[in-house]
């Protein structure tokens, strides 16, 4: 006995460790990114968690007692597999989309995230699953006694003097709880896949298949001689039983096929609706395509595992001689025939079947428990930093709770029931989800009230007609209620409600609960309306394939009344799912987008962010709770979701242009093209905006050249003059922002606007929303701002409206640019005209100055006996600085001078005039040339220095009486004498400094004799410095040569020929410098 116990215990332990290793290995593989669980075969094996110890032990029991209809439990799911192609795939798609965590989450999400519905479904699941888990515990503990040879229900461990009784059921419950916690509740996020757990489950599914197959082959081909042999021998030994087992309950008479149909119906529903099936098929699905394989592979699995059930059952009856204990034929047959190895294999198979189911079920239900029972309360608390720990531990607690509820049921009720019958209770419970579930996917009008009422009624009837009797059967409740109905009212008898008798209790319960469930669901859904939240979800659930595109458009029709930063959302998420998960989630959301977390998100982005936060939280706490959390967070922030005022009606002509928007654009371009008067354009445009969009005030400001904004147009109701106390000026920080970043800035609700910019007077004016739009063309600086204000509609500025306003502002910018360009062109033209006028005036002045200057020069040379003189000045600019003069002292003495004031300006001309004025008095004195220069220098020095000018001057006196020429020179070009018979010219040179360099200068005075025929040429530097095109100077040499050739000509002709020669030489009529020539010819 003890050896059997030890052996069984050790093998159980080793096996548990093996499963643990498998789970750990899968978990590890996932962590390093090489998942082994993400393939259709593992997926199928996980779905096979459907086959529990009910299948493993119970089926044989059922086959041995009621016969072939045990198969119905597996034919149902096989049939259901046909529907997976359209049903399961749709459920998976929706669940992935919304981070669904459980079946309760799924159904409550569809009915407007109803908290009540979620809680109700969770409750049903917990109660409904109780018998099912009890079944597993019962099966495993019973099989454990069998294999270890114990007759007692507890293991006695020697403990000091007394024995410590240790019930195996409790031990099993504890082990399974711990295992489930380790692999099912490591992390809070329940919408993620639990690869470790799934690998363990898949492994167990494999073990139970192998084990069942092994036992089946052992019985069929070792103990007997194949299928036909067993059937024939059984038919011969028990002909009555044979007929009963292989026909559908013909022994119980009329209406006997009802139980098999009930079973078929319930199992078809259960494969989709049991929380653990939903969990493995939907939540743990990694790829939609895996469903394709599972659709045929899962029925095949069931086919194989059930193939030998009948032979084992019949063989068991043949060997043991009775149907008693048929539930454990699988383990008993090898034991009886002495094949302990096979028995151990069977035991492990049963253990696997039970363990897999309990783990998945408890994880699935604890998730529901956390999300739909605990969360609604937690949501009302202020989030704390320790919330993630609280939540994860609540989830772990949930696992223990679920398993120990099952244990409790097993201890109290389990003994009196067959395995299969216990399981049927759970199936009937899960059927209560069916109307709401099917309606969720296929009936648009199905609503929350219908779902809650129907499910609740179904649950109550199930509880009353199935669970209650099971308690009372085991002596918990007085049997009188069961026999006569409560308070003796026969109509309310739990097993024959409203007098419906003659049915088995499951068909009876199923009929009434489904009747009430479905009718309540339909009636309430038809009578009562759906709320807005639900309608939203209906679109997502029922239109999940058809309306995906439109859905994204509809998404933007709500807005948050007060902006919330990304950081605030992250903080919120951190409080529920922990920092690392929150960070990972948000970085996944932002993805490539470079958005700084501190910055306020654009108003149009916010609803998306909110949805994302909800979805992320939903992955951990369920959709209903997540919605509540985010909503309460927003209301704490003073923000809420509100409907957007749809300024455009719903008629959409093109992609996203409403007819109104098109109309306004058209009108605007009409206004702009009608005139070039900017004022009219601006006024009309603002009035158009006011009229079409129910705005109250609109203002256009344009910036001038110094970037100062000034109001150019102001339209709207009760206007007051704009000054710095006007309420409009409160918005000037916005103007600066708009001018700076060239973006639209708007406030959709002034009462909720952040306090950084005070808007008291604006609010007092009754403004509830406003927007400032830069007037600019793409890629160009802003020309000004259009400001629009509304007193009636908060939330007026939708993305669509803003984009319309922006485009209108762009059109206005075009107009402003054009008008400004035209203005600028006009201005330029006027400037040019003025410049021309000015120029003409100056020219005229210069001409006058020139005439005056020329008039200052002697108009003709004085006549003196014996000499001929001529002088002429050819100024280069209008006014020159050359000067020459003759002063006739007496009949035979003449003073002659030539001078050149540096520069060719009016200044030079003025100095020249001064020189002339100063010289005039000198002629009456008898001063010598040098003395005249000397006094001239001292008198002119100050003026010349001040004007920064110099004068070169040659002064000479000629007396025709003596024929002598006395002269002095102040740095002037040396005059030339051409004398007959001499080839070279004589240069008249005398020492002397330029006038205006030093205040006091001594000049050398020289004399020379002039002879008949001598020609003297006085000239200024314009002559010898004249340049031809090659850059060659005219030079003294040429002057001299030319003078010699023309010396026979009269003086005036000599001058003419010089001018002609110089212009010929330089090749142009325009002189570079003034040229003054004076010729003195001795006759």
């Amino acid at each position, binding site marked *: 006995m003890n050896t059997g116990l030890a052996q069984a215990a050790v093998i159980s332990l080793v096996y548990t460790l093996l499963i643990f290793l498998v789970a750990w290995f899968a978990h590890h593989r996932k962590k390093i990114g090489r998942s082994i669980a993400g393939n259709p075969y593992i997926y199928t094996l996980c779905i096979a968690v459907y086959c529990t110890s009910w299948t493993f032990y119970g089926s044989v029991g059922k086959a041995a007692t009621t016969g*072939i209809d045990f*198969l*119905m439990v*597996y*034919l149902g799911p*096989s*049939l259901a*597999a*046909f*529907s997976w*192609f*359209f049903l399961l795939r749709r459920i998976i798609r929706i669940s992935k989309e919304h981070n669904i965590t459980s079946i309760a989450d799924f159904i409550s999400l569809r009915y407007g995230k109803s908290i009540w519905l979620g809680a109700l479904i969770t409750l049903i699941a917990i109660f409904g699953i109780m018998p099912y888990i009890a079944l597993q515990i019962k099966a495993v503990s019973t099989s454990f006694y069998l294999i270890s040879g114990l007759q007692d229900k507890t293991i006695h461990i020697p403990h000091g003097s007394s024995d410590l009784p240790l019930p195996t059921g409790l031990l099993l419950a504890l082990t399974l709880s711990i295992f489930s916690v380790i692999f099912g509740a490591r992390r809070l996020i329940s919408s993620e896949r639990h690869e470790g757990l799934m690998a363990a489950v898949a492994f167990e599914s494999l073990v139970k298949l192998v084990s069942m197959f092994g036992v089946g082959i052992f019985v069929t081909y070792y103990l007997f001689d194949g*299928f*036909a*042999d067993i*059937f*024939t021998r059984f*038919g011969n030994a028990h002909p009555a039983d*044979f*007929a009963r*087992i*292989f*026909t*559908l309950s*013909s022994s119980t008479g009329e209406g006997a*096929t009802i139980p*098999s*149909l009930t079973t*078929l119906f319930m199992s078809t529903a259960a494969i989709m609706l049991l929380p653990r099936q939903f969990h493995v098929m939907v939540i743990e699905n990694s790829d939609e*395509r895996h469903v*394709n*394989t599972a*659709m*045929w592979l899962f*029925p*095949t699995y069931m*086919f194989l595992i059930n*193939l030998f059930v*009948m032979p084992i059952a019949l063989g068991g009856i043949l060997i043991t001689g009775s149907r008693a204990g048929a539930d454990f034929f699988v383990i008993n047959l090898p034991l009886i025939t002495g094949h302990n190895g096979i028995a151990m294999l069977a035991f492990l198979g049963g253990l696997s079947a039970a363990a897999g189911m309990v783990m998945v079920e408890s994880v699935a239900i604890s998730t529901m428990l956390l999300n739909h029972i605990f969360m609604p309360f937690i949501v009302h608390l202020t989030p704390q930093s320790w919330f993630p720990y609280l939540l994860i531990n609540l989830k772990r607690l949930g696992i223990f709770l679920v398993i120990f509820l099952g244990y409790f049921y097993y201890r109290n009720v389990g003994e009196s029931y067959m395995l299969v019958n216990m399981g049927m209770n759970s199936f009937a419970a899960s059927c209560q989800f069916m109307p709401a579930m099917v309606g969720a996917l296929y009936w648009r009008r199905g609503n929350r009230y219908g779902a809650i009422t129907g499910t609740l009624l179904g649950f109550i009837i199930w509880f009353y007609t199935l669970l209650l009797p099971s308690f009372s059967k085991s002596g918990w409740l007085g049997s009188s209620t069961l026999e006569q109905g409560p308070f003796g009212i026969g109509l309310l008898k739990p097993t024959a409600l409203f007098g419906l008798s003659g049915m088995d209790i499951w068909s009876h319960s199923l009929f009434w609960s489904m009747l009430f469930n479905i009718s309540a669901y339909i009636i309430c859904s038809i009578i009562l309306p759906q709320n807005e939240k639900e309608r939203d979800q209906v679109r997502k659930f029922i239109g999940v394939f058809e309306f995906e595109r439109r859905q994204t458009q509809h998404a933007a029709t709500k807005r948050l009344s007060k902006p919330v930063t990304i950081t605030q959302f992250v903080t919120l998420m951190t409080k529920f799912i922990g920092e690392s998960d929150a960070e990972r989630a948000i970085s996944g959301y932002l993805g490539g987008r470079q958005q700084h977390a501190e910055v306020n998100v654009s108003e149009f982005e916010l609803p998306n962010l909110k949805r994302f936060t909800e979805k992320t939280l939903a992955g951990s706490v369920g959709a209903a709770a997540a919605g509540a959390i985010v909503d309460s967070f927003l209301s704490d922030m003073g923000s809420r979701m509100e409907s957007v005022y749809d300024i455009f009606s719903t008629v959409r002509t093109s992609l996203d242009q409403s007819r109104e928007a098109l109309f306004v654009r058209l009108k605007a371009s009409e206004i702009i093209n009608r005139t070039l008067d900017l004022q009219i354009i601006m006024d009309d445009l603002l009035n158009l905006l006011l009229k079409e969009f129910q705005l109250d005030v609109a203002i256009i400001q344009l910036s001038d050249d110094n970037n100062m904004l000034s109001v150019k147009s102001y339209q709207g109701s009760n206007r007051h003059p704009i000054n710095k106390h006007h309420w409009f000026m409160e918005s000037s920080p916005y103007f600066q922002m708009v001018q700076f970043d060239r973006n639209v800035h708007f406030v959709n609700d002034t009462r909720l606007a952040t306090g950084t910019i005070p808007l008291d007077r604006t609010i007092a004016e009754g403004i509830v929303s406003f927007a400032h739009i830069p007037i600019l063309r793409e890629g160009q600086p802003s020309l000004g701002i259009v400001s629009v204000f509304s007193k009636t509609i908060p939330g007026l500025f939708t993305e669509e409206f803003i984009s319309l306003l922006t485009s209108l502002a762009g059109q206005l910018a075009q107009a402003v640019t054009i008008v400004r360009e035209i203005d600028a062109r006009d201005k330029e033209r006027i400037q040019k005209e003025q410049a021309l006028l000015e120029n003409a005036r100056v020219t005229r002045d210069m001409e006058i100055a020139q005439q005056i200057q020329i008039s200052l020069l002697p108009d003709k040379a004085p006549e003196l006996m014996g000499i001929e003189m001529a002088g002429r000045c050819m100024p280069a600019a209008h006014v020159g600085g050359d000067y020459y003069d003759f002063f006739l002292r007496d009949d035979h003495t003449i003073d002659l001078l030539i001078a050149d004031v540096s520069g060719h300006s009016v200044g030079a001309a003025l100095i020249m005039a001064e020189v002339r004025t100063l010289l005039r008095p000198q002629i009456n004195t008898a001063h010598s040339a040098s003395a005249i220069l000397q006094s001239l220098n001292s008198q002119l020095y100050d003026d010349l220095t001040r004007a920064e000018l110099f004068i070169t001057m040659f002064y000479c006196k000629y007396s025709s009486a003596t024929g002598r020429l006395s002269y002095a020179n102040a740095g002037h070009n040396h005059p030339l004498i051409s004398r007959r018979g001499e080839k070279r010219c004589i240069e008249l040179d005398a020492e002397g400094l330029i006038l205006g360099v030093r205040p006091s200068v001594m000049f050398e005075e020289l004399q020379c004799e002039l002879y008949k025929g001598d020609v003297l040429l006085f000239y200024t530097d314009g002559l010898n410095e004249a340049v031809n095109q090659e850059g060659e100077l005219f030079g003294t040499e040429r002057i001299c040569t030319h003078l010699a050739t023309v010396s026979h000509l009269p003086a005036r002709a000599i001058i003419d020929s010089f001018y002609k020669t110089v212009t010929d030489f330089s090749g142009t009529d325009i002189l570079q410098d003034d040229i003054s020539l004076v010729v003195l010819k001795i006759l």
Partner: protein
Amino acid sequence: MPAKLGHKLLRRLQLRESWIIFFIMGIIMMNFPFLQIFNKPDTIFGLPLMFLYLVVGWAVSIFVIYLFTLGVGNSDEKRRETRQP
């Protein structure tokens, strides 16, 4: 020729309606009138009639689903191939 026929058959099976039709057909086969036909304690080759009906019927239905999924797999692959360029 048989391959061509099979291919054609698979393509027909892709229709969503055919899934529903087979689903409903399965429910009918599993229900009273049909079951009543085999609801006799007779044997064929030593195997009970009802047992044979259910087991063979089950195997056939699994095979039908298998054929379905082949069709689905085909169309899935085709879609992926055409999407690649």
